[in-house]
């Protein structure tokens, strides 16, 4: 960088520093030294004065607003509705366990009855076996894709 560029760079850097202090200044979060330093800069910097004014306006606009609240009776019923949800969560766990057990049991019996049955033609066994195998591979592949997508999602920020 040429000398002039360096100078410009440093001026920009220190201006950026004061801009950030501006936030602390308006929120009363600066140390006495920082505050004094900033006030001296403010005297001579029209840009900072302009931005300070726009931030003050912002504070005024937001200060005239509050979060929308929900009716009191909803708050009163909050715990009971939450409790129901927690209970339901527990029942889902049990239902899932039951479903898995039944599914395993059922498939085991189908396997025994169908594939170990000597009356069923071999060709039919092979055909159905291939079909089931294909379905399992597909299922695993979809599951893996979903899991992978979920993992990746966690790392990129939502910016909208």
């Amino acid at each position, binding site marked *: 960088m040429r000398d002039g560029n360096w100078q410009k760079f440093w001026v920009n850097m220190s201006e950026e520093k004061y*801009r*950030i*202090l*501006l*936030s*602390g200044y308006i*929120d009363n*979060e600066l140390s006495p030294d920082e505050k004094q330093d900033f006030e001296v800069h403010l005297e001579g910097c029209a840009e900072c004065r302009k*931005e300070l004014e*726009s*931030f003050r*306006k*912002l*504070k005024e*606009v*937001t*200060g*005239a*607003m*509050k*979060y*929308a609240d*929900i009716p009191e009776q*909803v*708050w009163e019923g*909050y*715990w009971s*509705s*939450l409790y129901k*949800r*927690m209970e339901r*969560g527990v029942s889902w766990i049990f239902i899932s366990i039951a479903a898995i057990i039944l599914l395993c049991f059922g498939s085991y019996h189908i396997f025994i009855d169908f594939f170990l049955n000597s009356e069923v033609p071999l060709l039919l066994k092979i055909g159905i076996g291939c079909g089931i195998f294909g379905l399992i591979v597909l299922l695993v592949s979809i599951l893996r894709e979903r899991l992978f997508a979920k993992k990746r*999602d966690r790392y990129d*920020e*939502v*910016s*909208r």
Partner: protein
Amino acid sequence: MTKENCDDAKLMVQIRKGDQSAMRELVERYKIKAYHLALGMVGNKDEAFDISQEAFIRVHKSAGKFNADQRFFPWFYSIISNLCKDCLKRRAKWESKQIDIDDNDFLLVTETNPEKIILKKEAARNLRKAIMLLDLSSREIIMLKHFRDLSYDEIADMLKIPKGTVMSRLYYARRKLAEILGEYE
């Protein structure tokens, strides 16, 4: 000792042991806070309510993982914040268009003077739109400072970032917000 005098970490220990009344006390203590924090991030009352409840369910489920030396609120906040992020991600996935924020009056005017109220309502609508156009981390810090009036130390604690970062993040967020609002004028 009554539950009301218990600090949060002690309540968590009791929750871990399966004490339902400790859970209830914690919920009473934080339900409104949780709702407001979520509302500021997702901008929709129903979703915010749902997130607040889901956050408590997670607290209940992972009470075993909570370390008694840890402070409860920053931990709880990170649960809420993650749920909000998931919610926004789902929304971005399912809706190609921007949601109509005008229908979701998540910020209301405090003005009672009928002459001023129309003007303020217009300003509120613009502000709601502008806030939802901010990126997530800007929106988060604006909501914490402007609508919860937390100190920089408190915000640093919740977001697990240094105090200096709070100041700079807040500066850039305000600049963005002022820019967006400027376009509406």
